[in-house]
């Protein structure tokens, strides 16, 4: 998918005309233009233009160019626009960790990040972890240690677990529990999740 503008039967509303016009490219959020827009009191006219914002980001090594409303979260963008539904919506308020993805290598809650804040960034979701048919060591370890029951929190747990190992917060079971506390598992698979993380850490494979 190159752009959400390519949906069929969208019709030619005034909004679409504005979107397609070259104006939108010109105001592609170069700061000086944005400043000028605000300073010349052109706010109302620009509100129309700003309704959808050009966005380019890389997800699982694939570049996507599109336009999004500013209020769309990274989570909704991944799920609804890119149909990468591995990343789960749990609480949608940063309390459960089911939506954890990596942004430029760091774990974040995608539900509390606007898609437009991630312009130019590299996103990795659970879909981008395996190497073809070969599971990522953390995925394999979760299966081996039964690190889940219902599985809903699992993509977030695994993304967080990979980051936890990379960050080096795996010195003890207690340290792992502390640094995994942003991922809630209502089935209570916590001890097995810690087992999986310890195995990956001790296996020494690059994660």
């Amino acid at each position, binding site marked *: 998918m190159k752009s959400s503008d390519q949906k069929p039967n969208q019709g030619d509303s005034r909004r679409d005309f504005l979107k397609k016009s070259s104006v939108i490219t010109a105001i592609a*959020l170069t*700061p000086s233009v*944005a*400043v000028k827009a*605000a*300073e010349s009191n052109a*706010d109302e006219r*620009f*509100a129309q233009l*700003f*309704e959808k*914002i050009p966005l380019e980001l890389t997800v699982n090594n694939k570049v996507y160019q599109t336009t999004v*409303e*500013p*209020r769309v*979260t990274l989570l909704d963008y991944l799920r609804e626009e890119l149909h990468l539904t591995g990343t789960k919506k749990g609480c*949608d*308020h*940063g309390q459960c*960790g089911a939506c*954890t993805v990596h942004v430029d290598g*760091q*774990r*974040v*809650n995608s539900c*509390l*990040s*606007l898609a*437009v*804040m991630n*312009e130019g960034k590299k996103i990795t979701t659970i879909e981008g972890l395996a190497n073809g048919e070969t599971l990522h060591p953390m995925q394999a370890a979760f299966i081996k240690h039964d690190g889940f029951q219902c599985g809903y929190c699992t993509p977030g747990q695994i993304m*967080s677990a990979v*980051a*936890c190992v990379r*960050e080096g*917060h795996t010195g003890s079971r207690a340290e792992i*529990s*502390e*640094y*995994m*506390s*942003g*991922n809630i598992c209502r089935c209570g698979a916590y001890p097995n999740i810690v087992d999986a993380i310890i195995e990956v850490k001790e296996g020494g494979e690059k994660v």
Partner: protein
Amino acid sequence: MINFQYLRTTTAKSAIALLVKDKNAKFLAGGTNLIDLMKRGVTAPEKLIDINHVPLKQIEQIGNKIHIGALASNSAVADSALIKEKLPLLSWALQAGASAQLRNVATVGGNMMQRTRCSYFYDTEMPCNKRQPGTGCGAMEGFNRMHAIFGASEKCIAVHPSDMCVALTALDAEVVVANAKGERKIPFKDFHRLAGDTPQLDNNLKADEMIIRLEIPMNNLAKNYHYLKVRDRASYAFALVSVAAAFELSNNKITDIRLAMGGVAHKPWRLTASENFLKGKEATLSNFEEAAQLAMKDAKGFGGNDFKLKLAPNTIIEGLNLAKSKV
């Protein structure tokens, strides 16, 4: 979430220029609190100014002060070798807050600007003088086990939720803020405010100002320190009561001491009377107990949070004990 206009800028100067242009504009940094509040309809800015590209992420020593940029992430500060060595209390307090994911995104300035987690503030069906002045306080006679025991007003008994800010109050940090005309410094203990008659105001930052950086003076408090956070679960929960304790010992006498509490007031609560009492005294349990009693002098419970009247002094004593046994 109600839609809004999104602007992005790369300099503090243009960020401030955009802010003063519109009464309903807000800065967007990490967004971990603001986006949540917007989803819940607690706040609905018409314009968000994304300041994440403004170069304010420095963590450095300049002269005898540590400078921390307003946009340094909580995890960058907590994991910084410089902060761990010179200001370990701050590193500990940051690690006690939120989760690893949130700390990667949440910024120093955003942490200071975060709103209370009072459930009446969050629930738009409930009265709340902070969210909507004049509607009353649901917590006063409601579910108030998380609420203030110090400095509460008749209009609001919410607490400031930050751990980082408790350590910064204890460490005598200064906040450098800027408007279009220039910069000014606010002592950290005066940055946040008590609710008084205007609970809608969390702090003394003016509408045309932006937080630029923190400046924290060097100290000799890196040996005996502790941040003790008591909460409903072992990790990833807001404080019922927290204590930042740090002191310097010379011949077993306390020569410098800092004590501050979180989860007990509308602002990080510095325990000046207790500090003054302990200065020059020996670090003994009986002195710690007396200091804790002094700290509780003006405490007042509201029913659900009466347990804090006992929990708070016990946490002070335990925090001081743990700081003492650190070495």
